[in-house]
């Protein structure tokens, strides 16, 4: 295939083509879900969704809506491919990952369709880099069947209140136990590690809590190693919504404001851990 350094005109024979003035708008969100090497990309008219999964228990999605891009066009109804997220991130940050104000990497992304590689054209300070990343057959993704009508408990709080807690989680504990209740302790995060147990309690009237809709007392345990990567998304976000359904499936939704003040979302879904025996409270 002839290789041209000139980016093609937008929309021409490309299943997906997009332009972004500041590649960081994309790379920072992708980092928030980068806990596995591979990701599945889904592009529709509304934007780009990048999904990462692990152990058939956890799924993270980064949503970059079409409005974030300067140009975003998808020829078919949807375009889906699997790609190495590590390589994609390395390419997006090829000019370095430090965020100096005033400098940014411009990105143009093109995908011809099934079987073709993803082409990236990155430019900073007059220097252009062209990347060609092979794509793979997309794998079937988990469907947590999590919709708002099935939500039992929901709390929205300011990320500031959770950031330190997640960064300092006792990783010698196998699980992170989450208790949500209309009664005390309202919202509690617990770990059971080598040093002993630790509980972090948030009262329902705390200034950090914006929304508190808990109908039922629920205590669920999740493998801490699976949830720990969500700390990255938490660090970027300003607000987080924590929801559980009747089976104890956990949904964490992070509201992230980028450098230009635009809002994007990252969400994590996690299955409760059934193997763990009754832990001390």
């Amino acid at each position: 295939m002839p290789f041209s350094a000139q980016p093609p005109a937008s929309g021409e024979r490309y299943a997906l083509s997009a332009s972004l003035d500041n590649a960081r708008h994309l790379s920072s969100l992708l980092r928030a879900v980068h806990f596995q090497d591979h990701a599945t990309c889904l592009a529709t008219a509304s934007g780009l969704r990048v999904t990462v999964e692990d152990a058939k228990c956890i799924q993270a999605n980064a949503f970059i809506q079409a409005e974030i891009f300067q140009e975003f066009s998808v020829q078919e109804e949807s375009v889906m491919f699997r790609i190495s997220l590590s390589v994609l991130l390395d390419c997006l940050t090829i000019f370095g990952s430090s965020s100096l104000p005033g400098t940014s990497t411009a990105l143009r992304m093109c995908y011809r369709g099934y079987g073709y590689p993803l082409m990236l054209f990155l430019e900073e300070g007059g220097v252009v880099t062209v990347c060609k990343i092979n794509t793979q057959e997309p794998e079937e993704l988990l469907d947590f069947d999590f919709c708002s009508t099935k939500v039992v408990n929901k709390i929205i709080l300011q990320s500031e209140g959770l950031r330190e807690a997640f960064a300092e989680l006792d990783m010698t504990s196998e699980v992170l136990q989450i208790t949500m209740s209309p009664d005390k302790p309202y919202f509690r995060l617990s770990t059971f590690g080598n040093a002993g147990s630790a509980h972090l309690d948030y009262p329902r009237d705390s200034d950090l809590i914006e929304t508190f809709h808990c109908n039922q007392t629920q205590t669920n345990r999740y493998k801490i190693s699976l949830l720990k990567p969500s700390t990255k998304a938490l660090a970027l976000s300003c607000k987080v919504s924590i929801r559980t359904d009747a089976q104890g499936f956990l949904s964490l939704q992070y509201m992230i404001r980028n450098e230009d003040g635009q809002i994007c979302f990252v969400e994590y879904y996690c299955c409760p851990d059934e193997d763990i025996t009754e832990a001390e409270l």
Partner: protein
Amino acid sequence: MKCVIAGGNVKVLGRAVHSLSRIGDELYLEPTESGLSFRAVNSSRSAFASFLFAPLFFQLYEPGSAGPDTELFRCKVHMKSFLGIFRSLPSLEKSVGKCLILLKPRASRLVLQLHCKYGVTKTHNLAFQECERLQAVFDTQCCASRLCAPARVLAEAIVHFPLTLAEVTLGTGPGGKISLRNYVEDEAEPSKTMLTELWLAEDEFQSVAVAPGSHITFCLKEFRGLLSFAEASNLPLTIHFDEPGRPVIFTLDDTVLEVHLVLATLSDAESSSQSPSTNSMSHLPAPSDDFADDLESYMAAMETSEGCSEGLPSPTFSLHVPRPAKSKPEKEEEEEEEGAVPGTPPHKKFRSLFFGSVMTPGRPGPATTQEVLAEDSDGES
């Protein structure tokens, strides 16, 4: 035992824990009528530190009640676990308003509860072990020399020595000057070693009362921990020392806090040939790796030496749970008998400090019994 620490004192407590974490792997907690004591000892028992927080340090202090047959409850916890709670000092300052410490002997849990801003509560339930009293035997009255300086002066002096430096020699020189130089082992190649020496004038110190020509060599690592605490708390540091081989005692005094750091020093037989002093210890036998031999020879020397006053503990002082040699290991000392001990690498040349017998109520006094040297007070097993 129940106590509450409020406001800025939470950070002071955190700093004390950081300081103690430079000494040993276990934190000993001992509530007494005169306050709550936090102590640590290193694996080779050549460093001991104690922080005594007076009742006034706390918003609430209930040491618990001692029955006629029982003493106030003591325990020890893993240093790492305790330190983890106070790991980030800036965030302690920023978000923690109150700290509650509750000792629940029956539940076997030490509860530490931090009340943070936004109404958030962090509760840690730590496992602990019962333990015997940890008390090094020392007496500042017994020391021939004493220096007192603002912590800043000493910190600025120590900064000239590389972080990897193990030992430093503090000495008194002509004109009342105080010297600090890095200690170089005799085996070291003169052409490959860097010597650093600095002199401090008498007026840098708040008080100087030293025996002329005296010097001591001690480990820098444990001292640095105390120094950073002293600097942060803006307290003057007093150094009590005597002849080489006898422990050096660093103290910090405050209305609500009393800190002691006791470090073993190199005895004269091993120290550099430049040292002029002679003392009653100079004819000690050369040290061997076997602790038991060291101990016996030290004790023999103690018996023959003149000692300094009735304040000096009798050489027949019972030793509190020494390294294994002959005695059976106590249950709570098991971890110290593991082969590779983390923390301060035991320096063979440093004598271990004497540790008081459990029999002793408080300050060192003459021992009542002579026969038992190595067994613990829990009784024969």
